[in-house]
């Protein structure tokens, strides 16, 4: 990496269109997937698991919404309902959204965007996938053994006294935490050590910056979740009493521990989404990103401030009023770097050449929906208003706007953006657009009414409710069906695109500039058959595309490079 460009023999490497050999057919058979160390295959395995769990969580959500059709019982009893919403929350958070963008799309594209052959520790990467699967098995086990009815937050002392399978569930989450930590370590090291020659920090794609910020949060916050869950397990098995008032412990301390992880975790969910949006908006506006450094550094700022505000989930929990006030004050500051991002994206579109392809549509929907989610977050951070809105459906609506309207919509943007690269196939643009509109409508019909009923005082985690709220609940339920229809359409046209023959994708269908587009679609087994060299910022659309395909000869395999360079044996 120390070598400067002129020492090396740099030339342009043309891309092979419709390659015969690529990572998908480099090896075959089930084993070649399950034991692969190829980051691309691991990324795809994550992608498949994550989509699976999104559907599990989604079906549970549909069940929740259906139960809320009638004020009292519709088709399940209170205990079942409590298990269903706990499971819905836990599956969506721990099995779907936290690994979603980093572990699936990040794994696939981070090394490619750096021009590297793989992540720094490919075996660890595979291990992380297996740990994730193992943790998921524990979660499934706890469903089979009666489920868990604590809510995804596992608040003590309820979680230490209820008779359900809390231990196996928390153990599952504990294990998955390690998977998240390993991914984080891998990404940090890869970004630090494996950038292509010439790729300085100022030339990193913003998706990389966002994954880097995310990885920092993962590494710093997840261990605290691990110790919290361990304490919870100890509490249930040995009665250690740290969170148990009967033994002199303090249940509010549990909440500090939990939110010290779980608030930063919401930025684990959203910051990678920001990265996707940067890529998509710039590409489909065919224009240099506006405010590159501010977007890059605001991710780090969000990551940092995110560690200081966890107590905004505890304003009425009985924590000291001093802490409450300070937490509220700090909370708002996340809004500033976030706002900078949003407005810079909008500014990027100014005088662009905007191509309204599906990923762009999702990205623009993201801007709208996430802003609503963010503003309602500000509302919740305001002390006196929070007292009224805390633990009502207003909060439920807030976090679905940021997680579903934000992260999931960005995830959809990302999938549609990179689909041709990952699979080598194009999907049907018309149906993709139809689905995006259906999802947008369904989403708002589901969750806008929840803001209203929350403001009126409808508490969350309620199996039954007073009749006053029935109309709003029913509207929301209908919306959830529209969402379901939307996802079915997405599922159908994506599956078709996989199996039809006529729709081969070119290597760079959107005319993007980042390195992953300079490989073939689908990429070769080792991503590039040369060592890429980076001269420009990845959003410099005014530079000819040929200048983004530069590289030096040699596959960059360690042995070959070494054989070329004069080796001096030195005694250390």
């Amino acid at each position: 990496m120390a070598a400067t460009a002129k020492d090396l023999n740099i030339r342009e490497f043309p891309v092979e269109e419709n390659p015969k050999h690529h990572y998908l057919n480099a090896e075959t058979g089930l084993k070649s997937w399950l034991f692969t160390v190829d980051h691309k295959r691991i990324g795809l395995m994550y992608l498949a698991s994550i989509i699976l769990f999104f559907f599990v969580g989604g079906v549970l959500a549909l069940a929740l919404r259906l139960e809320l059709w009638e004020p009292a019982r519709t088709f399940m009893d209170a205990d079942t309902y409590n298990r269903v919403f706990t499971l819905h929350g836990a599956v969506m958070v721990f099995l779907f959204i936290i690994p979603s963008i980093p572990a699936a799309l990040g794994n696939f594209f981070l090394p490619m965007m750096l021009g590297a052959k793989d992540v720094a520790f490919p075996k660890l990467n595979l291990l992380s996938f297996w740990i994730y699967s193992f943790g998921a098995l524990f979660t499934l086990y706890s469903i089979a053994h009666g489920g868990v009815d604590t809510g995804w937050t596992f608040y003590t002392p309820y979680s230490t006294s209820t008779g359900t399978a809390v231990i196996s569930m928390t153990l599952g989450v504990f294990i998955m935490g390690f998977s998240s930590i390993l991914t984080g370590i891998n990404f940090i090291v890869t970004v630090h050590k494996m950038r292509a020659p010439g790729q300085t920090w100022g030339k990193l794609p913003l998706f990389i910056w966002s994954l880097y910020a995310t990885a920092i949060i993962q590494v710093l916050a997840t261990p605290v979740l691990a110790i919290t869950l361990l304490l919870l397990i100890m509490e249930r098995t040995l009665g250690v009493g740290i969170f148990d008032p009967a033994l002199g412990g303090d249940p509010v301390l549990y909440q500090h521990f939990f939110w010290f992880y779980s608030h930063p975790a919401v930025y684990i969910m959203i910051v990678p989404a920001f990265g996707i949006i940067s890529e998509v908006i710039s590409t489909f506006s065919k224009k240099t990103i506006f405010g590159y450094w501010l977007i890059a550094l605001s991710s780090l700022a969000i990551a940092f401030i995110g560690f200081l505000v966890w107590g905004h989930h505890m304003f009425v929990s009985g924590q000291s009023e001093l802490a409450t006030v300070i937490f509220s004050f700090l909370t708002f500051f996340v809004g500033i770097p976030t706002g900078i991002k949003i407005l810079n994206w909008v500014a990027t579109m100014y005088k662009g050449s905007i191509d309204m392809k599906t990923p762009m549509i999702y990205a623009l929907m993201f801007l709208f929906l996430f802003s609503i989610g963010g503003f309602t977050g500000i509302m919740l951070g305001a002390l006196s208003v929070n007292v009224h809105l805390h633990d009502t459906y207003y909060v439920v609506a807030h976090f679905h706007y940021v997680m579903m309207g934000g992260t999931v919509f960005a995830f959809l943007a990302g999938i549609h953006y990179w689909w041709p690269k990952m699979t080598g196939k194009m999907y049907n643009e018309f149906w993709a657009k139809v689905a995006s509109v259906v999802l947008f409508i369904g989403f708002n019909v589901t969750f806008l009414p929840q803001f209203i009923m929350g403001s009126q005082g409808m508490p969350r985690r309620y199996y039954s409710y007073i009749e006053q709220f029935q109309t709003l609940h029913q509207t929301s339920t209908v919306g959830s069906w529209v969402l379901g229809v939307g996802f079915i359409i997405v599922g159908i046209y994506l599956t078709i695109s996989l199996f039809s023959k006529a729709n081969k994708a070119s290597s760079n269908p959107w005319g993007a500039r980042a390195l992953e587009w300079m490989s073939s679609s689908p990429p070769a087994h080792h991503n590039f058959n040369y060592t890429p060299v980076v001269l420009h910022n990845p959003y410099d659309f005014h530079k000819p595309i040929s200048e983004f395909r530069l590289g030096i000869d040699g596959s960059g395999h360690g042995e070959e490079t070494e054989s070329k360079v004069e080796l001096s044996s030195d005694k250390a």
Partner: protein
Amino acid sequence: MSEHNHHVIDLKYLLGAAGALVVLTVITVAAAYMDIPRPFDLITALTLAFGKATIVAAVFMGLIWDKKINTMALLFSILFFFIMIGITLLDTLFRDRPFWVWN
């Protein structure tokens, strides 16, 4: 480059560090038996512990000779630990001082 990363730590540093650690441990125990008044006994003990920790990190773990980024990683973890405890104490130490007691 190579010398830099594969720095072989001089024997005298390693032995010196171990010696210093043993001495500091003895001092720590001795200080505990002396009757230092309340907050200061803890402060002494912790200062000594931080001193020992610095020796381990700097010499045994080789941070003196290593890339700066590794030191930064360690310092970051300590910073975030202090954030965690510092802000939590804002709650736990001030519970009995709510506004309604002030007036």
